[in-house]
């Protein structure tokens, strides 16, 4: 119940689409979205497949609570094998597209093969067809959405698409829906582009109606919305400041990676913070932040809608950027700003707009640029090579290089390969701030020990969203732990990873977990889907999903050696702040993490663990 019960399988090579019943047994054991989509992927592709070959598949998946009145019920996940990392990729997005797919009557769409020419998929309730996209190829995400709404004569159609970056093989190209919501990480947009698939346009009018106990569902979802409303983070901090509420907090903790992790505090953090976004500019007397915005069904509304200063050098002759659009959230503000030492808020907004317009992950882009700037300052890269002088702090270099990267021009082509490949090419692989080839987000593993372990063990490479121990280590949710202490963190990381996998698979947003635990998710799923989804069952489902992803990666060739952090985090102590003198204690934590997981000393799930989780 609450699943649509139907999946759409699209063979791009043959140009055909067909409807299949959802595997109901898997829905019971892997729930939906991340878990269920990943189960289909690992069951259908060879783990060693070349991610950019036709043999890879890519899946858009909703969860059982997507498209319902449960708060934040608008999420979907894009799942494939990543060209950036070679590991399983699983990127989650909000906006309105996921709910539209579900309301059209589909739980997920699986694409296989490769189209001979550019196509897009048009879904109108039960009917689905591949259509020619020759006129859309080479267009941005924003142009693609506008052109599809016009040509389909339907202003209410929702679009999930790639821009030029995904077409041109930028290895961290994103899938973007509703103009500025992103399934951002691991290059899911790159895989979409490799298949000559430009967009999925969806219109769903049927709705989500098969709730198991509608009366109980309405009652419990209202109760849980009240918890979100009454909570300081989800009821006040996030709607008012967005995720940017963290910028000054993390900087004061000495956990804000700065200038490619050379430093852990950014002297200009306040200039790129939530407070700065809300302060009127000298130039035009207006604040950059216009308002907040919710995704489908979300009663938190952390999204930022911003307007750039029209007189700023980046856009003064480009009126197409003067209107309101998606603004800076914390990760983008950090990656484009502190990671490069850039403190000009307007340039950061310009860069985040281009990331959305052409579809790239601002975290991987910004972090790769940080490595480029370090190599420039070391004299390894020259102004001639890069096309501009690129010292840390240069807003001009950021603006120029984001244009070059999204358009795959000049040195932007090299930045588009990510920091692991770029630093290796120039002989300094240790300067790549990545795990499994994916760039770190906005927390330093020296000042927050648990997040370092979470990065090293994340199934999709460096990532904060796979086990956000920052909640506990910084914000005290659900219990406060000491960020500088490594004891106890292996168990904490495991608990966060498993619970997050369950939340990600429900169709709801992980940001609810600032106020909710699995005990709040369970009764909503029970009312919608079935009594069996107790808190304990959800813990088990989450752990099962984690181990399934891990086994895919192991079969793809990953080993214990890949559960690693760069030397900088392990041997160069933090220079300032509360963590001064500290490095990340990964070597202490990793064996204990394996033990807590029920894995052998090489990081492989034991027979007992596999049996316990019915893998």
């Amino acid at each position, binding site marked *: 119940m609450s699943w649509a019960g139907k999946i759409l399988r699209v063979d791009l090579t043959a140009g055909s689409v067909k409807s299949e019943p959802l595997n109901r047994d898997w829905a019971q054991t892997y729930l939906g979205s991340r878990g269920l989509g990943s189960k289909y992927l690992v069951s259908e592709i060879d783990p060693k497949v070349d991610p950019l070959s036709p043999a890879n598949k890519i899946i858009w998946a909703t969860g059982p609570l997507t498209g319902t009145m449960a708060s934040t019920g608008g999420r979907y996940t894009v799942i494939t094998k990543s060209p950036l990392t070679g590991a399983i990729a699983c990127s989650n997005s909000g906006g309105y597209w996921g709910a539209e797919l579900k309301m059209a009557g589909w739980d997920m769409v699986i694409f296989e093969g490769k189209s001979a020419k550019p196509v897009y998929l048009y879904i109108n309730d039960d009917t689905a067809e591949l259509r020619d996209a020759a006129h859309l190829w080479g267009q941005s995400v924003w142009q693609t959405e506008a052109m599809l709404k016009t040509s389909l004569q339907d202003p*209410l159609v929702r679009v999930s698409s790639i821009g030029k970056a995904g077409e041109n093989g930028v290895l961290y190209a994103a899938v973007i829906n509703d103009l500025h919501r992103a399934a951002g990480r691991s290059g899911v947009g790159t895989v979409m582009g490799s298949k000559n698939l430009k967009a999925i346009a969806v219109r769903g009018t049927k709705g989500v109606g098969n709730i198991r106990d*509608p009366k109980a569902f309405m009652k419990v979802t209202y109760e849980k919305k009240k918890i979100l409303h009454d909570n300081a983070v989800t009821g006040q901090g996030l*709607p008012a400041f967005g995720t940017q509420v963290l910028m000054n907090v993390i900087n004061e903790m000495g956990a804000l990676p700065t200038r490619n992790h050379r430093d852990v505090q950014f002297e200009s953090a306040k200039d790129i913070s939530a407070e700065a976004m809300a302060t009127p500019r000298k130039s035009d007397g207006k604040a950059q932040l216009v308002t907040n915005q919710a995704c489908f069904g979300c009663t938190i*509304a952390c999204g930022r809608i911003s307007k750039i200063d029209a007189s700023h050098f980046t856009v003064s002759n480009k009126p197409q950027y003067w209107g*309101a659009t998606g603004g800076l959230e914390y990760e983008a503000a950090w990656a484009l700003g502190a990671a490069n030492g850039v403190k000009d808020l307007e340039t950061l907004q310009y860069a985040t707009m281009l990331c959305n317009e052409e579809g790239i992950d601002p975290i991987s882009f910004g972090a790769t640029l940080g490595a480029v700037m370090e190599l420039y300052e070391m004299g390894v890269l020259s102004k001639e090579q890069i096309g501009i002088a690129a010292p840390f702090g240069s807003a001009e270099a950021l603006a120029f290089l984001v244009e070059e990267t999204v358009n795959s021009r000049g040195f932007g082509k090299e930045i588009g390969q990510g920091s692991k490949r770029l630093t290796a090419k120039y002989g300094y692989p240790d300067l790549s701030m990545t795990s499994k080839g994916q760039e770190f987000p906005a927390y330093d593993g020296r000042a927050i020990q648990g997040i370092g372990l979470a990065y090293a063990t994340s199934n999709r490479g460096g990532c904060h969203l796979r086990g956000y121990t920052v909640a506990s280590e910084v914000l005290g949710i659900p219990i406060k732990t000491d960020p500088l202490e490594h004891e106890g963190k292996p168990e904490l990381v495991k608990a966060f990873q498993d619970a997050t996998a369950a939340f990600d698979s429900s169709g709801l947003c992980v940001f609810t977990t600032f106020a909710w635990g699995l005990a709040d998710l369970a009764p909503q799923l029970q009312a919608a889907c079935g009594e069996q989804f107790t808190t304990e069952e959800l813990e088990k489902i989450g752990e099962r999903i984690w181990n399934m992803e891990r086994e895919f990666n192991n079969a793809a060739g990953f080993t214990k050696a890949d559960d690693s952090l760069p030397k900088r985090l392990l041997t160069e102590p933090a220079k300032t702040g509360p963590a001064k003198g500290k490095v990340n204690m990964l070597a202490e934590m990793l064996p204990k993490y394996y033990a807590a997981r029920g894995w052998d000393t090489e990081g492989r799930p034991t027979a007992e663990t596999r049996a316990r989780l019915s893998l």
Partner: protein
Amino acid sequence: MQKVLHIDPEKCTGCLQCEMACSFENYGVFATAKSRIKVFDFHETGKKVPYTCTQCDEAWCLHACPVEAITMDRLTGAKVVNETICVGCKVCTIACPFGTINYVQETGKVQKCDLCGGEPACVEACPTQAITFIDANWTGLGRMKQWADKLGNQPAAA
């Protein structure tokens, strides 16, 4: 006391909880496409505006209907479509200046907001009180208070 829906676009976040509540109340499904209240997202300005029937006193739709399928609920003041009488001629959709009464292909009838019999589901669902259900005579009270505040809450002149 008669009440009306009062909409404050400044408070709307675009979450569409109102649209889901409306479709669930009337059709038992979460389907924004079936909602009688619609939220419009003006992307260039960042503004989100919920819009639905304001229950006109001299209702154009009611007067235009050739079969008298639209009547006033005396308790709530809502103009209500009687589906057993409606013939789907759509004249009301032409008469309404605001576009808030619309044809439904699946039923062959028109639909419009009926205030849910006096307990509007959209109001309960709205997380930010952008949609409220208040005294029809005093929809301006909140705004009056805002301006009165300039006098009432300022420190006394020295």
